[in-house]
């Protein structure tokens, strides 16, 4: 109640007690978290742990976007989905899992692909965005959308036995385009569905994405902005490196930025990256 200086109910105090006990997090961090809203784009390998930990820790409103259905060959890494959901919507499956661990937060299901036509509207409803997608055009589209709307972006990627993580468009830091103004050649853009991934690698990166989003939402700690985490699972090595700041020449966030709301809605990210938003079916030829 207000006379005790916080808005936590007795149930919340009990549920989140281990976080409330933390001097550097405490009641203020938890209150900030409960008032925040986070959108996770992609309910796959990265989204699975990110969504579970964000629901568990008490994010007030948790949104999820995906148009895919659960397949058996997702289950080795997409631990939010069970066999019972094979053939059903990933968002429905993920939302059910999140509700089962925390029925007290608001969970919003966006069962559609994120596109230039709906991105501005969907993203505008949230404070923080997590990019848990698996392809280059989505990464550029999401970054541009976050720049246009002024939303911090926690971007993770995993492939094979490696992972990468950074926070973009936060507190004057760079956006994704500041780092990668020109898309890589198509041949350099491999997906998990083409090249494989060890299941727990997106697990590690997805957890770290949840952590960075929690830090931004709760106003606790130093988010990974202006830095990038590089994870090599095979050799158990992790580097955290210093990256460039915001570029004044950036097309999206620079002094003479050309990306506007209007242009965004008609920009062809598939053409820009010469790469499709949806993955082609896998052709696995084993021995």
């Amino acid at each position, binding site marked *: 109640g207000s006379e005790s200086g916080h808005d936590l109910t007795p149930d919340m105090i009990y549920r989140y007690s281990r976080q409330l006990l933390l001097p550097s997090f405490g009641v203020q961090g938890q209150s900030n978290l409960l008032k925040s809203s986070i959108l996770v784009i992609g309910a796959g390998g990265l989204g699975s742990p990110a969504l579970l930990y964000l629901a568990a820790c008490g994010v007030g409103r948790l949104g999820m976007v995906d148009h895919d259905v659960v397949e058996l060959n997702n289950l080795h890494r997409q631990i939010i989905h069970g066999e019972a959901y094979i053939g059903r919507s990933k968002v429905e499956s993920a939302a059910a899992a999140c509700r089962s661990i925390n029925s007290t937060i608001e969970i919003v299901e966006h069962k559609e692909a994120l596109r230039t036509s709906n991105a501005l509207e969907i993203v505008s409803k949230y404070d923080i965005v997590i990019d848990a997608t*698996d392809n280059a055009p989505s990464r550029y589209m999401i970054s541009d959308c976050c720049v246009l709307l002024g939303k911090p972006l926690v971007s993770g990627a*995993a492939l094979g036995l490696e992972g*990468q993580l950074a926070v973009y468009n936060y507190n004057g830091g760079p956006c994704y385009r500041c780092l990668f103004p020109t898309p*890589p050649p198509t041949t350099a853009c*491999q997906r998990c569905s083409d090249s494989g991934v060890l299941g727990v690698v997106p697990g590690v990166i997805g957890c770290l994405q949840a952590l960075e989003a929690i830090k931004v939402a709760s106003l606790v700690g130093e988010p990974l902005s202006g830095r990038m985490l590089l994870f090599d699972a095979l*050799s158990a090595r992790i580097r*955290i490196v*210093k990256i460039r700041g915001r570029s004044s020449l950036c097309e999206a966030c620079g002094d003479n930025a050309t990306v506007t709301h209007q242009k965004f809605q008609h920009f062809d990210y598939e053409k820009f990256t010469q790469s499709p938003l949806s993955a082609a079916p896998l052709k696995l030829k084993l021995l």
Partner: protein
Amino acid sequence: MQLTLEFGGGLELLCDSVKIHSVNVDLPAEEKKLTMKHLLAWVRSNLIKERPEMFMKGDTVRPGVLVLVNDCDWELSGQLETTLEDKDVVVFISTLHGG
């Protein structure tokens, strides 16, 4: 000059799948310092075994490759003009898109 070169994000596939290379790079004739520009040419001639277009474009790295000198983005130290010193660690890493 003793350098450690590391390749990641798939770029190691261009050099026999070896990620870490301890190398000795000589100063170019009539030069007093070794720059990243010279090192890139050296890497292309000495380490890249296949598909050099997946590593370089023109005289710099291809789009989507981050270059780190001692854990710091080379944009902060002058890109191609960055001067290298003995025992420096240079990382070339391709950005990942998977999830």
